[in-house]
Protein backbone atom coordinates (compact mmCIF):
# COMPACT_ATOMS: atom_id res chain seq x y z
CA UNK A 1 0.00 0.00 0.00
CA UNK A 2 1.35 3.37 -1.00
CA UNK A 3 2.04 5.60 1.95
CA UNK A 4 2.04 8.70 -0.20
CA UNK A 5 -1.07 9.16 -2.26
CA UNK A 6 -0.58 9.17 -6.00
CA UNK A 7 -1.18 12.64 -7.42
CA UNK A 8 -3.19 12.81 -10.61
CA UNK A 9 -1.76 15.63 -12.79
CA UNK A 10 -4.10 18.38 -13.97
CA UNK A 11 -3.23 17.73 -17.60
CA UNK A 12 -2.02 14.71 -19.48
CA UNK A 13 1.55 14.88 -20.82
CA UNK A 14 0.52 13.96 -24.34
CA UNK A 15 -2.17 16.46 -25.31
CA UNK A 16 -2.56 15.34 -28.93
CA UNK A 17 -6.09 14.02 -29.42
CA UNK A 18 -5.99 10.29 -30.09
CA UNK A 19 -7.53 8.86 -33.29
CA UNK A 20 -11.09 7.60 -33.21
CA UNK A 21 -11.46 4.35 -31.25
CA UNK A 22 -12.46 1.41 -33.48
CA UNK A 23 -15.71 -0.53 -33.21
CA UNK A 24 -14.00 -3.64 -31.88
CA UNK A 25 -12.71 -1.74 -28.84
CA UNK A 26 -16.12 -0.24 -28.19
CA UNK A 27 -17.62 -3.74 -28.29
CA UNK A 28 -15.01 -5.02 -25.85
CA UNK A 29 -15.85 -2.17 -23.49
CA UNK A 30 -19.58 -2.90 -23.73
CA UNK A 31 -18.94 -6.58 -22.93
CA UNK A 32 -16.63 -5.73 -20.06
CA UNK A 33 -19.31 -3.41 -18.66
CA UNK A 34 -21.08 -6.60 -17.52
CA UNK A 35 -18.50 -6.68 -14.70
CA UNK A 36 -19.23 -3.16 -13.49
CA UNK A 37 -19.92 -4.29 -9.92
CA UNK A 38 -17.19 -6.91 -9.76
CA UNK A 39 -15.43 -5.16 -6.88
CA UNK A 40 -18.43 -3.30 -5.48
CA UNK A 41 -17.66 -1.86 -2.06
CA UNK A 42 -19.06 0.89 0.09
CA UNK A 43 -16.13 3.27 -0.36
CA UNK A 44 -16.14 3.91 -4.10
CA UNK A 45 -18.95 1.49 -5.05
CA UNK A 46 -18.49 0.41 -8.68
CA UNK A 47 -15.12 2.05 -9.33
CA UNK A 48 -13.01 -1.11 -9.76
CA UNK A 49 -15.40 -2.63 -12.29
CA UNK A 50 -15.75 0.71 -14.05
CA UNK A 51 -11.98 0.88 -14.58
CA UNK A 52 -11.96 -2.75 -15.74
CA UNK A 53 -14.59 -1.88 -18.36
CA UNK A 54 -12.82 1.31 -19.49
CA UNK A 55 -9.39 -0.28 -19.93
CA UNK A 56 -9.67 -1.32 -23.62
CA UNK A 57 -10.51 2.26 -24.57
CA UNK A 58 -7.99 3.87 -22.21
CA UNK A 59 -5.21 1.69 -23.60
CA UNK A 60 -6.06 2.89 -27.12
CA UNK A 61 -6.16 6.61 -26.36
CA UNK A 62 -3.27 6.86 -23.87
CA UNK A 63 -0.10 5.62 -25.51
CA UNK A 64 1.99 7.52 -22.96
CA UNK A 65 2.40 5.22 -19.98
CA UNK A 66 2.33 8.01 -17.39
CA UNK A 67 -0.91 9.31 -18.88
CA UNK A 68 -2.40 5.83 -18.78
CA UNK A 69 -1.46 5.53 -15.09
CA UNK A 70 -3.01 8.92 -14.30
CA UNK A 71 -6.14 8.07 -16.23
CA UNK A 72 -6.50 4.65 -14.61
CA UNK A 73 -6.01 6.16 -11.19
CA UNK A 74 -8.67 8.84 -11.52
CA UNK A 75 -11.06 6.34 -13.11
CA UNK A 76 -11.14 4.69 -9.67
CA UNK A 77 -13.12 7.64 -8.23
CA UNK A 78 -16.43 6.95 -6.51
CA UNK A 79 -19.07 6.01 -9.04
CA UNK A 80 -22.55 4.60 -8.63
CA UNK A 81 -24.66 4.27 -11.71
CA UNK A 82 -27.04 1.78 -13.23
CA UNK A 83 -25.31 -1.40 -14.44
CA UNK A 84 -27.33 -1.61 -17.67
CA UNK A 85 -26.98 2.06 -18.60
CA UNK A 86 -23.33 2.50 -17.63
CA UNK A 87 -22.07 2.38 -21.22
CA UNK A 88 -23.72 5.76 -21.79
CA UNK A 89 -21.29 7.28 -19.29
CA UNK A 90 -18.41 5.19 -20.66
CA UNK A 91 -18.88 6.56 -24.19
CA UNK A 92 -18.86 10.16 -22.98
CA UNK A 93 -15.87 9.68 -20.69
CA UNK A 94 -13.97 7.89 -23.46
CA UNK A 95 -14.54 10.80 -25.84
CA UNK A 96 -13.15 13.18 -23.19
CA UNK A 97 -10.13 10.94 -22.54
CA UNK A 98 -9.49 10.67 -26.26
CA UNK A 99 -9.37 14.47 -26.55
CA UNK A 100 -7.05 14.72 -23.53
CA UNK A 101 -9.37 17.02 -21.61
CA UNK A 102 -8.20 18.19 -18.15
CA UNK A 103 -8.46 15.36 -15.64
CA UNK A 104 -10.61 17.46 -13.30
CA UNK A 105 -13.17 17.97 -16.06
CA UNK A 106 -13.32 14.26 -16.83
CA UNK A 107 -13.85 13.45 -13.17
CA UNK A 108 -16.60 16.06 -12.80
CA UNK A 109 -18.41 14.98 -15.98
CA UNK A 110 -18.21 11.34 -14.94
CA UNK A 111 -19.88 11.76 -11.54
CA UNK A 112 -22.50 14.14 -12.97
CA UNK A 113 -23.44 11.85 -15.86
CA UNK A 114 -23.35 8.64 -13.83
CA UNK A 115 -25.34 9.60 -10.73
CA UNK A 116 -28.78 10.42 -12.18
CA UNK A 117 -28.84 7.24 -14.32
CA UNK A 118 -29.52 5.07 -11.27
CA UNK A 119 -33.11 6.21 -10.95
CA UNK A 120 -33.81 5.93 -14.68
CA UNK A 121 -32.38 2.42 -14.87
CA UNK A 122 -34.26 1.26 -11.78
CA UNK A 123 -37.50 2.55 -13.29
CA UNK A 124 -36.81 0.86 -16.62
CA UNK A 125 -35.48 -2.49 -15.42
CA UNK A 126 -36.36 -3.30 -11.81
CA UNK A 127 -39.74 -1.56 -11.82
CA UNK A 128 -40.90 -2.31 -15.37
CA UNK A 129 -39.10 -5.03 -17.31
CA UNK A 130 -38.46 -7.50 -14.47
CA UNK A 131 -41.93 -7.30 -12.86
CA UNK A 132 -43.64 -7.81 -16.21
CA UNK A 133 -41.46 -10.61 -17.60
CA UNK A 134 -40.91 -12.32 -14.25
CA UNK A 135 -44.59 -11.94 -13.37
CA UNK A 136 -45.70 -13.74 -16.53
CA UNK A 137 -42.99 -16.41 -16.48
CA UNK A 138 -43.39 -17.10 -12.74
CA UNK A 139 -46.97 -18.14 -13.29
CA UNK A 140 -45.83 -20.36 -16.17
CA UNK A 141 -43.23 -21.92 -13.86
CA UNK A 142 -45.76 -22.54 -11.10
CA UNK A 143 -47.83 -24.34 -13.73
CA UNK A 144 -44.77 -26.52 -14.34
CA UNK A 145 -43.69 -25.10 -17.70
CA UNK A 146 -39.97 -25.75 -18.20
CA UNK A 147 -39.72 -23.00 -20.84
CA UNK A 148 -40.47 -20.29 -18.24
CA UNK A 149 -36.91 -19.65 -16.99
CA UNK A 150 -35.58 -19.73 -20.54
CA UNK A 151 -38.13 -17.18 -21.82
CA UNK A 152 -37.32 -14.94 -18.88
CA UNK A 153 -33.58 -15.10 -19.55
CA UNK A 154 -33.97 -14.44 -23.29
CA UNK A 155 -36.21 -11.37 -22.93
CA UNK A 156 -34.20 -9.87 -20.08
CA UNK A 157 -30.84 -10.31 -21.76
CA UNK A 158 -31.94 -9.00 -25.16
CA UNK A 159 -33.09 -5.81 -23.42
CA UNK A 160 -29.93 -5.60 -21.34
CA UNK A 161 -27.46 -6.07 -24.18
CA UNK A 162 -29.39 -3.78 -26.53
CA UNK A 163 -28.94 -1.07 -23.87
CA UNK A 164 -25.27 -1.82 -23.30
CA UNK A 165 -24.19 -1.86 -26.96
CA UNK A 166 -26.61 0.80 -28.21
CA UNK A 167 -25.70 3.34 -25.54
CA UNK A 168 -21.97 2.68 -25.88
CA UNK A 169 -21.95 3.56 -29.58
CA UNK A 170 -24.45 6.39 -29.38
CA UNK A 171 -22.89 8.25 -26.46
CA UNK A 172 -19.36 7.88 -27.89
CA UNK A 173 -20.54 9.46 -31.14
CA UNK A 174 -22.38 12.24 -29.30
CA UNK A 175 -19.36 12.83 -27.05
CA UNK A 176 -16.82 13.06 -29.83
CA UNK A 177 -19.22 15.21 -31.87
CA UNK A 178 -19.76 17.75 -29.10
CA UNK A 179 -16.16 17.89 -27.93
CA UNK A 180 -14.91 20.60 -30.30
CA UNK A 181 -17.53 23.12 -29.19
CA UNK A 182 -16.65 22.41 -25.56
CA UNK A 183 -12.88 22.38 -25.82
CA UNK A 184 -12.96 25.79 -27.54
CA UNK A 185 -13.87 27.14 -24.10
CA UNK A 186 -12.00 24.62 -22.01
CA UNK A 187 -11.63 26.70 -18.87
CA UNK A 188 -15.30 27.63 -18.73
CA UNK A 189 -16.26 24.03 -19.48
CA UNK A 190 -14.10 22.70 -16.65
CA UNK A 191 -15.64 25.25 -14.31
CA UNK A 192 -19.19 24.42 -15.40
CA UNK A 193 -18.57 20.67 -15.12
CA UNK A 194 -17.12 21.13 -11.62
CA UNK A 195 -20.11 23.23 -10.57
CA UNK A 196 -22.45 20.45 -11.66
CA UNK A 197 -20.14 17.90 -10.03
CA UNK A 198 -20.08 19.52 -6.59
CA UNK A 199 -23.82 20.20 -6.87
CA UNK A 200 -24.48 16.49 -7.51
CA UNK A 201 -22.20 15.44 -4.63
CA UNK A 202 -24.21 17.80 -2.42
CA UNK A 203 -27.38 16.03 -3.57
CA UNK A 204 -25.86 12.56 -3.04
CA UNK A 205 -24.96 13.51 0.53
CA UNK A 206 -28.70 13.79 1.15
CA UNK A 207 -30.09 11.02 -1.02
CA UNK A 208 -27.49 8.39 -0.08
CA UNK A 209 -26.51 9.60 3.38
CA UNK A 210 -28.45 7.59 5.96
CA UNK A 211 -26.19 7.91 8.99
CA UNK A 212 -27.99 9.24 12.04
CA UNK A 213 -27.12 9.44 15.73
CA UNK A 214 -30.02 7.63 17.36
CA UNK A 215 -28.85 8.27 20.89
CA UNK A 216 -31.52 8.88 23.53
CA UNK A 217 -30.44 10.35 26.84
CA UNK A 218 -32.65 9.84 29.94
CA UNK A 219 -33.49 13.32 31.14
CA UNK A 220 -35.24 12.95 34.53
CA UNK A 221 -38.96 12.63 34.81
CA UNK A 222 -41.96 14.83 34.34
CA UNK A 223 -44.82 15.02 36.85
CA UNK A 224 -48.43 15.29 35.84
CA UNK A 225 -51.94 14.94 37.14
CA UNK A 226 -54.37 12.56 35.50
CA UNK A 227 -58.05 13.13 36.27
CA UNK A 228 -60.48 10.32 37.00
CA UNK A 229 -64.22 10.80 37.45
CA UNK A 230 -66.44 8.43 39.43
CA UNK A 231 -70.06 8.64 40.55
CA UNK A 232 -70.54 7.56 44.20
CA UNK A 233 -73.07 8.08 46.98
CA UNK A 234 -72.87 11.34 48.92
CA UNK A 235 -71.54 9.47 51.95
CA UNK A 236 -68.69 7.92 50.04
CA UNK A 237 -67.97 11.27 48.45
CA UNK A 238 -67.15 12.60 51.93
CA UNK A 239 -64.17 10.25 51.98
CA UNK A 240 -62.69 11.99 48.98
CA UNK A 241 -63.07 15.47 50.41
CA UNK A 242 -60.06 15.25 52.69
CA UNK A 243 -57.60 14.09 50.01
CA UNK A 244 -55.60 17.27 50.20
CA UNK A 245 -52.12 16.64 48.87
CA UNK A 246 -49.06 18.67 48.01
CA UNK A 247 -48.77 17.46 44.41
CA UNK A 248 -45.22 18.75 43.98
CA UNK A 249 -43.77 16.33 46.48
CA UNK A 250 -46.26 13.45 46.62
CA UNK A 251 -45.21 10.07 45.32
CA UNK A 252 -46.43 8.85 41.96
CA UNK A 253 -49.78 7.11 42.31
CA UNK A 254 -51.03 9.37 45.13
CA UNK A 255 -54.66 10.37 44.76
CA UNK A 256 -55.63 14.01 45.35
CA UNK A 257 -58.75 16.12 45.23
CA UNK A 258 -57.32 19.49 46.27
CA UNK A 259 -54.07 21.16 47.16
CA UNK A 260 -53.09 21.96 50.74
CA UNK A 261 -55.19 25.17 50.73
CA UNK A 262 -58.29 23.23 49.65
CA UNK A 263 -58.44 24.60 46.10
CA UNK A 264 -59.32 22.29 43.19
CA UNK A 265 -56.48 20.94 41.08
CA UNK A 266 -56.06 21.45 37.35
CA UNK A 267 -55.58 18.02 35.78
CA UNK A 268 -55.94 16.39 32.38
CA UNK A 269 -58.47 13.64 31.71
CA UNK A 270 -57.90 10.59 29.55
CA UNK A 271 -58.68 12.58 26.39
CA UNK A 272 -56.22 15.29 27.36
CA UNK A 273 -58.91 17.87 28.21
CA UNK A 274 -58.18 20.17 31.15
CA UNK A 275 -60.53 19.59 34.08
CA UNK A 276 -60.65 20.85 37.67
CA UNK A 277 -60.97 18.37 40.50
CA UNK A 278 -63.85 18.61 42.95
CA UNK A 279 -67.10 17.05 44.09
CA UNK A 280 -70.40 17.88 42.46
CA UNK A 281 -73.63 16.87 44.18
CA UNK A 282 -75.87 15.41 41.52
CA UNK A 283 -78.97 15.98 43.72
CA UNK A 284 -80.19 12.36 43.74
CA UNK A 285 -78.13 11.22 46.72
CA UNK A 286 -75.16 10.65 44.45
CA UNK A 287 -72.08 12.78 43.80
CA UNK A 288 -69.76 13.00 40.83
CA UNK A 289 -66.22 13.02 42.14
CA UNK A 290 -63.33 14.16 39.96
CA UNK A 291 -60.03 13.36 41.60
CA UNK A 292 -56.48 13.46 40.32
CA UNK A 293 -53.70 10.90 40.33
CA UNK A 294 -50.11 12.09 40.49
CA UNK A 295 -48.08 10.56 37.66
CA UNK A 296 -44.39 10.51 37.00
CA UNK A 297 -43.14 9.64 33.51
CA UNK A 298 -39.49 9.34 32.45
CA UNK A 299 -38.35 11.84 29.83
CA UNK A 300 -35.66 11.08 27.33
CA UNK A 301 -33.88 13.50 25.12
CA UNK A 302 -33.56 12.37 21.49
CA UNK A 303 -30.38 13.55 19.81
CA UNK A 304 -31.77 12.64 16.39
CA UNK A 305 -34.83 14.86 16.60
CA UNK A 306 -32.76 17.76 17.92
CA UNK A 307 -30.28 17.36 15.06
CA UNK A 308 -33.14 17.15 12.57
CA UNK A 309 -34.65 20.33 13.91
CA UNK A 310 -31.33 22.08 13.28
CA UNK A 311 -30.82 20.59 9.80
CA UNK A 312 -31.88 17.19 8.48
CA UNK A 313 -28.96 15.05 7.24
CA UNK A 314 -26.60 17.04 9.43
CA UNK A 315 -24.55 13.94 10.31
CA UNK A 316 -23.85 12.93 6.68
CA UNK A 317 -22.96 16.55 5.88
CA UNK A 318 -20.63 16.82 8.85
CA UNK A 319 -18.89 13.54 7.99
CA UNK A 320 -18.40 14.53 4.33
CA UNK A 321 -16.97 17.90 5.36
CA UNK A 322 -14.74 16.29 8.00
CA UNK A 323 -13.36 13.80 5.47
CA UNK A 324 -12.92 16.57 2.88
CA UNK A 325 -10.92 18.51 5.45
CA UNK A 326 -8.78 15.46 6.26
CA UNK A 327 -8.15 14.64 2.60
CA UNK A 328 -7.61 18.18 1.35
CA UNK A 329 -5.74 19.74 4.28
CA UNK A 330 -4.29 16.87 6.30
CA UNK A 331 -3.11 14.64 3.44
CA UNK A 332 -5.20 11.70 4.61
CA UNK A 333 -5.21 8.74 2.21
CA UNK A 334 -8.54 7.05 1.37
CA UNK A 335 -7.58 3.95 3.36
CA UNK A 336 -7.02 6.08 6.46
CA UNK A 337 -10.49 7.54 5.94
CA UNK A 338 -11.94 4.02 5.77
CA UNK A 339 -10.17 2.97 8.95
CA UNK A 340 -11.43 6.10 10.72
CA UNK A 341 -15.03 5.28 9.72
CA UNK A 342 -14.68 1.62 10.78
CA UNK A 343 -13.43 2.90 14.12
CA UNK A 344 -16.33 5.35 14.50
CA UNK A 345 -18.86 2.71 13.43
CA UNK A 346 -17.66 -0.03 15.78
CA UNK A 347 -16.87 2.18 18.79
CA UNK A 348 -20.24 3.89 18.35
CA UNK A 349 -21.94 0.49 18.42
CA UNK A 350 -20.33 -0.65 21.69
CA UNK A 351 -23.10 -1.44 24.17
CA UNK A 352 -22.01 1.30 26.63
CA UNK A 353 -22.05 3.97 23.90
CA UNK A 354 -24.87 2.79 21.63
CA UNK A 355 -24.67 5.79 19.33
CA UNK A 356 -26.67 4.16 16.52
CA UNK A 357 -29.71 3.18 18.59
Amino acid at each position, binding site marked *: *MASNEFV*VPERYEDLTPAPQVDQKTLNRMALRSCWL*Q*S*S*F*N*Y*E*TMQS*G*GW*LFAMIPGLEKVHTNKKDL*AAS*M*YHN*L*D*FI*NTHPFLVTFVMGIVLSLEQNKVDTQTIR*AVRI*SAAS*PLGGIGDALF*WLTLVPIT*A*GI*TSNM*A*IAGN*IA*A*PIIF*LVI*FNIAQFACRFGLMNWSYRVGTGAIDALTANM*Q*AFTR*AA*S*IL*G*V*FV*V*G*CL*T*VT*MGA*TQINLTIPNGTTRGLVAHTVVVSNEDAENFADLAVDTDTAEAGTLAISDMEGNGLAAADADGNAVTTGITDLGNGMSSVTYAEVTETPVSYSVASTLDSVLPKLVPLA*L*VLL*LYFLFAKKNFT*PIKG*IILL*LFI*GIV*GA*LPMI*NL*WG
Partner: protein
Amino acid sequence: MDVNAVQIVLVFLVTFVAAIDQFDFLESLYQPIVTGAVIGAILGDINTGLIVGGTYQLMTIGNMPIGGAQPPNAVIGGIMAAVFACTLDMDPDMAVATAIPFALLGQYGVTLFFTLRAPLLEFFRGAAENADTKAITKWTIISECILGVIFAVIVTLFFIGGLAVGQQIVDAIPAWLNTGLSQAGNMMKFVGFAILLKIMMNRDMWGFFFMGFGLALIASNIEAIAGPALLILTLIGFGIAFWDFQQQTELKGAVADGGDFTDGI
Protein backbone atom coordinates in the same frame (compact mmCIF):
# COMPACT_ATOMS: atom_id res chain seq x y z
CA MET B 1 -33.69 -37.58 1.09
CA ASP B 2 -30.02 -38.53 0.91
CA VAL B 3 -27.73 -36.32 -1.08
CA ASN B 4 -24.61 -37.55 -2.80
CA ALA B 5 -21.24 -35.85 -3.31
CA VAL B 6 -21.96 -34.94 -6.94
CA GLN B 7 -25.08 -33.07 -5.90
CA ILE B 8 -23.16 -31.16 -3.22
CA VAL B 9 -20.51 -30.14 -5.73
CA LEU B 10 -23.15 -29.05 -8.24
CA VAL B 11 -25.01 -26.96 -5.64
CA PHE B 12 -21.67 -25.38 -4.75
CA LEU B 13 -20.99 -24.50 -8.39
CA VAL B 14 -24.49 -23.18 -9.07
CA THR B 15 -24.27 -20.95 -6.01
CA PHE B 16 -20.82 -19.75 -7.03
CA VAL B 17 -22.15 -18.64 -10.43
CA ALA B 18 -25.39 -17.21 -9.04
CA ALA B 19 -23.52 -15.22 -6.37
CA ILE B 20 -21.40 -13.52 -9.02
CA ASP B 21 -24.32 -13.13 -11.39
CA GLN B 22 -26.43 -11.25 -8.86
CA PHE B 23 -24.23 -8.18 -9.37
CA ASP B 24 -22.40 -8.84 -12.64
CA PHE B 25 -22.38 -10.83 -15.87
CA LEU B 26 -25.97 -11.43 -17.06
CA GLU B 27 -27.58 -10.27 -13.81
CA SER B 28 -30.49 -12.60 -14.49
CA LEU B 29 -29.18 -16.16 -14.00
CA TYR B 30 -29.42 -15.64 -10.25
CA GLN B 31 -33.16 -14.95 -10.28
CA PRO B 32 -35.07 -17.59 -8.29
CA ILE B 33 -37.12 -18.54 -11.34
CA VAL B 34 -33.86 -19.78 -12.91
CA THR B 35 -32.03 -21.14 -9.84
CA GLY B 36 -35.16 -22.94 -8.64
CA ALA B 37 -35.37 -24.98 -11.83
CA VAL B 38 -31.61 -25.67 -11.89
CA ILE B 39 -31.47 -26.78 -8.24
CA GLY B 40 -34.58 -28.88 -8.85
CA ALA B 41 -32.85 -30.60 -11.76
CA ILE B 42 -29.75 -31.29 -9.64
CA LEU B 43 -31.83 -32.77 -6.84
CA GLY B 44 -33.89 -34.84 -9.26
CA ASP B 45 -37.19 -32.97 -9.03
CA ILE B 46 -37.24 -30.26 -11.69
CA ASN B 47 -41.00 -29.76 -11.43
CA THR B 48 -40.89 -28.88 -7.73
CA GLY B 49 -37.90 -26.64 -8.42
CA LEU B 50 -39.87 -24.76 -11.11
CA ILE B 51 -42.84 -24.23 -8.81
CA VAL B 52 -40.73 -23.04 -5.87
CA GLY B 53 -38.68 -20.78 -8.13
CA GLY B 54 -41.83 -19.23 -9.58
CA THR B 55 -43.33 -18.76 -6.13
CA TYR B 56 -40.19 -17.14 -4.79
CA GLN B 57 -39.86 -14.96 -7.88
CA LEU B 58 -43.38 -13.59 -7.46
CA MET B 59 -42.52 -12.67 -3.89
CA THR B 60 -39.38 -10.77 -4.88
CA ILE B 61 -41.16 -8.57 -7.42
CA GLY B 62 -41.25 -5.19 -5.78
CA ASN B 63 -38.33 -6.18 -3.61
CA MET B 64 -35.56 -5.33 -6.03
CA PRO B 65 -32.08 -3.89 -5.43
CA ILE B 66 -33.29 -0.34 -6.04
CA GLY B 67 -31.28 2.74 -5.21
CA GLY B 68 -28.40 0.77 -3.72
CA ALA B 69 -30.63 -0.85 -1.09
CA GLN B 70 -30.01 -4.51 -0.33
CA PRO B 71 -33.21 -6.58 -0.31
CA PRO B 72 -33.30 -10.04 1.32
CA ASN B 73 -30.77 -11.96 -0.71
CA ALA B 74 -32.52 -13.72 -3.59
CA VAL B 75 -29.58 -16.01 -4.35
CA ILE B 76 -29.49 -17.70 -0.96
CA GLY B 77 -33.27 -17.42 -0.54
CA GLY B 78 -34.12 -18.92 -3.93
CA ILE B 79 -31.61 -21.74 -3.71
CA MET B 80 -32.47 -22.66 -0.12
CA ALA B 81 -36.21 -22.66 -0.88
CA ALA B 82 -35.64 -25.12 -3.73
CA VAL B 83 -33.37 -27.22 -1.51
CA PHE B 84 -35.97 -27.41 1.25
CA ALA B 85 -38.79 -28.27 -1.13
CA CYS B 86 -36.82 -30.99 -2.91
CA THR B 87 -35.02 -32.61 0.05
CA LEU B 88 -37.51 -32.16 2.89
CA ASP B 89 -40.65 -32.58 0.77
CA MET B 90 -41.89 -29.21 1.94
CA ASP B 91 -44.86 -27.57 0.34
CA PRO B 92 -43.57 -24.76 -2.04
CA ASP B 93 -45.09 -21.90 0.01
CA MET B 94 -43.72 -23.37 3.22
CA ALA B 95 -40.28 -23.82 1.62
CA VAL B 96 -40.25 -20.16 0.54
CA ALA B 97 -41.22 -19.02 4.03
CA THR B 98 -38.55 -21.23 5.62
CA ALA B 99 -35.93 -19.78 3.28
CA ILE B 100 -36.64 -16.15 4.27
CA PRO B 101 -34.38 -16.12 7.38
CA PHE B 102 -31.57 -17.45 5.19
CA ALA B 103 -32.24 -14.69 2.66
CA LEU B 104 -32.07 -12.13 5.45
CA LEU B 105 -28.81 -13.63 6.63
CA GLY B 106 -27.55 -13.33 3.05
CA GLN B 107 -28.61 -9.70 2.88
CA TYR B 108 -26.71 -9.10 6.06
CA GLY B 109 -23.66 -10.91 4.78
CA VAL B 110 -23.65 -8.88 1.58
CA THR B 111 -23.70 -5.62 3.53
CA LEU B 112 -20.80 -6.77 5.68
CA PHE B 113 -18.91 -8.01 2.64
CA PHE B 114 -19.26 -4.68 0.82
CA THR B 115 -17.92 -2.93 3.92
CA LEU B 116 -14.95 -5.23 4.32
CA ARG B 117 -14.13 -5.26 0.59
CA ALA B 118 -13.25 -1.53 0.56
CA PRO B 119 -9.57 -2.10 1.42
CA LEU B 120 -9.27 -4.30 -1.69
CA LEU B 121 -9.44 -1.07 -3.68
CA GLU B 122 -5.88 -0.28 -2.58
CA PHE B 123 -4.68 -3.08 -4.86
CA PHE B 124 -6.56 -1.51 -7.77
CA ARG B 125 -4.98 1.85 -6.95
CA GLY B 126 -1.54 0.26 -6.80
CA ALA B 127 -2.09 -1.34 -10.20
CA ALA B 128 -3.32 1.95 -11.66
CA GLU B 129 -0.22 3.83 -10.45
CA ASN B 130 1.88 1.44 -12.51
CA ALA B 131 -0.52 1.51 -15.48
CA ASP B 132 -0.74 -2.26 -15.00
CA THR B 133 -3.94 -3.21 -16.83
CA LYS B 134 -3.31 -6.94 -16.35
CA ALA B 135 -3.30 -6.50 -12.58
CA ILE B 136 -6.71 -4.82 -12.79
CA THR B 137 -8.03 -7.92 -14.54
CA LYS B 138 -6.34 -10.13 -11.94
CA TRP B 139 -7.85 -8.26 -9.00
CA THR B 140 -11.26 -8.17 -10.67
CA ILE B 141 -11.17 -11.97 -10.93
CA ILE B 142 -9.90 -12.39 -7.37
CA SER B 143 -12.56 -10.04 -6.08
CA GLU B 144 -15.33 -11.97 -7.85
CA CYS B 145 -13.99 -15.34 -6.71
CA ILE B 146 -13.97 -14.24 -3.06
CA LEU B 147 -17.64 -13.30 -3.36
CA GLY B 148 -18.54 -16.54 -5.18
CA VAL B 149 -16.68 -18.78 -2.76
CA ILE B 150 -18.15 -17.13 0.35
CA PHE B 151 -21.67 -17.60 -0.98
CA ALA B 152 -21.03 -21.12 -2.20
CA VAL B 153 -19.50 -22.22 1.10
CA ILE B 154 -22.35 -20.74 3.13
CA VAL B 155 -25.08 -22.28 0.97
CA THR B 156 -23.30 -25.65 0.90
CA LEU B 157 -23.06 -25.59 4.70
CA PHE B 158 -26.77 -24.83 4.91
CA PHE B 159 -27.45 -27.53 2.35
CA ILE B 160 -25.59 -30.16 4.38
CA GLY B 161 -26.30 -28.87 7.88
CA GLY B 162 -29.82 -27.57 7.46
CA LEU B 163 -31.58 -25.10 9.70
CA ALA B 164 -29.44 -25.64 12.84
CA VAL B 165 -26.24 -24.40 11.19
CA GLY B 166 -27.91 -21.17 10.02
CA GLN B 167 -29.04 -20.35 13.53
CA GLN B 168 -25.63 -21.09 15.02
CA ILE B 169 -23.93 -18.73 12.58
CA VAL B 170 -26.37 -15.95 13.39
CA ASP B 171 -25.87 -16.45 17.12
CA ALA B 172 -22.07 -16.49 16.87
CA ILE B 173 -21.79 -12.83 15.86
CA PRO B 174 -22.51 -10.29 18.61
CA ALA B 175 -25.25 -7.88 17.62
CA TRP B 176 -23.28 -4.73 18.42
CA LEU B 177 -20.45 -5.78 16.09
CA ASN B 178 -22.95 -6.33 13.29
CA THR B 179 -24.43 -2.90 13.92
CA GLY B 180 -21.02 -1.28 14.02
CA LEU B 181 -19.81 -2.83 10.79
CA SER B 182 -22.99 -2.05 8.90
CA GLN B 183 -22.96 1.53 10.20
CA ALA B 184 -19.36 1.87 9.06
CA GLY B 185 -20.38 0.46 5.70
CA ASN B 186 -23.13 3.01 5.53
CA MET B 187 -20.64 5.82 6.07
CA MET B 188 -17.94 4.64 3.67
CA LYS B 189 -19.49 6.32 0.65
CA PHE B 190 -18.63 9.62 2.32
CA VAL B 191 -14.96 8.83 1.66
CA GLY B 192 -15.79 8.61 -2.05
CA PHE B 193 -17.75 11.86 -1.88
CA ALA B 194 -14.96 13.69 -0.06
CA ILE B 195 -12.36 12.58 -2.61
CA LEU B 196 -14.55 13.89 -5.42
CA LEU B 197 -15.01 17.18 -3.62
CA LYS B 198 -11.29 17.50 -3.10
CA ILE B 199 -10.76 17.22 -6.86
CA MET B 200 -13.52 19.52 -8.02
CA MET B 201 -13.77 22.09 -5.27
CA ASN B 202 -12.51 25.64 -5.64
CA ARG B 203 -12.98 28.28 -2.99
CA ASP B 204 -15.82 29.87 -4.95
CA MET B 205 -17.74 26.63 -5.45
CA TRP B 206 -18.88 25.79 -1.93
CA GLY B 207 -22.14 27.61 -2.62
CA PHE B 208 -23.04 25.10 -5.33
CA PHE B 209 -22.33 22.17 -3.01
CA PHE B 210 -24.62 23.58 -0.32
CA MET B 211 -27.26 24.48 -2.89
CA GLY B 212 -27.29 20.86 -4.04
CA PHE B 213 -27.51 19.71 -0.43
CA GLY B 214 -30.40 22.06 0.37
CA LEU B 215 -32.40 21.33 -2.77
CA ALA B 216 -31.94 17.59 -2.26
CA LEU B 217 -33.31 17.91 1.29
CA ILE B 218 -36.43 19.53 -0.11
CA ALA B 219 -36.83 17.13 -3.02
CA SER B 220 -36.32 13.98 -0.97
CA ASN B 221 -39.02 15.08 1.46
CA ILE B 222 -41.63 15.55 -1.25
CA GLU B 223 -43.08 12.09 -1.63
CA ALA B 224 -44.28 12.53 -5.21
CA ILE B 225 -40.83 13.33 -6.57
CA ALA B 226 -38.61 11.49 -4.09
CA GLY B 227 -38.03 8.59 -6.53
CA PRO B 228 -36.66 10.54 -9.49
CA ALA B 229 -35.30 13.27 -7.18
CA LEU B 230 -31.70 12.83 -8.31
CA LEU B 231 -32.60 13.22 -11.97
CA ILE B 232 -34.66 16.34 -11.28
CA LEU B 233 -31.86 17.78 -9.16
CA THR B 234 -29.28 17.05 -11.84
CA LEU B 235 -31.44 18.93 -14.35
CA ILE B 236 -31.45 21.94 -12.01
CA GLY B 237 -27.71 21.62 -11.49
CA PHE B 238 -27.22 21.35 -15.24
CA GLY B 239 -29.17 24.57 -15.73
CA ILE B 240 -26.96 26.37 -13.22
CA ALA B 241 -23.75 24.97 -14.73
CA PHE B 242 -24.90 25.78 -18.26
CA TRP B 243 -25.78 29.33 -17.28
CA ASP B 244 -22.36 29.72 -15.68
CA PHE B 245 -20.73 28.38 -18.86
CA GLN B 246 -22.59 30.95 -20.95
CA GLN B 247 -21.65 33.73 -18.53
CA GLN B 248 -18.00 32.75 -18.65
CA THR B 249 -17.82 32.40 -22.42
CA GLU B 250 -19.80 35.58 -23.12
CA LEU B 251 -17.60 37.45 -20.69
CA LYS B 252 -14.57 36.22 -22.56
CA GLY B 253 -16.11 37.43 -25.84
CA ALA B 254 -16.92 40.80 -24.27
CA VAL B 255 -13.35 41.24 -23.06
CA ALA B 256 -12.10 40.45 -26.54
CA ASP B 257 -14.45 43.17 -27.83
CA GLY B 258 -12.82 45.64 -25.50
CA GLY B 259 -15.20 45.19 -22.58
CA ASP B 260 -18.02 47.05 -24.27
CA PHE B 261 -20.99 46.55 -21.95
CA THR B 262 -23.61 48.74 -23.52
CA ASP B 263 -26.64 46.62 -24.13
CA GLY B 264 -29.36 46.53 -21.57
CA ILE B 265 -27.79 48.92 -19.08
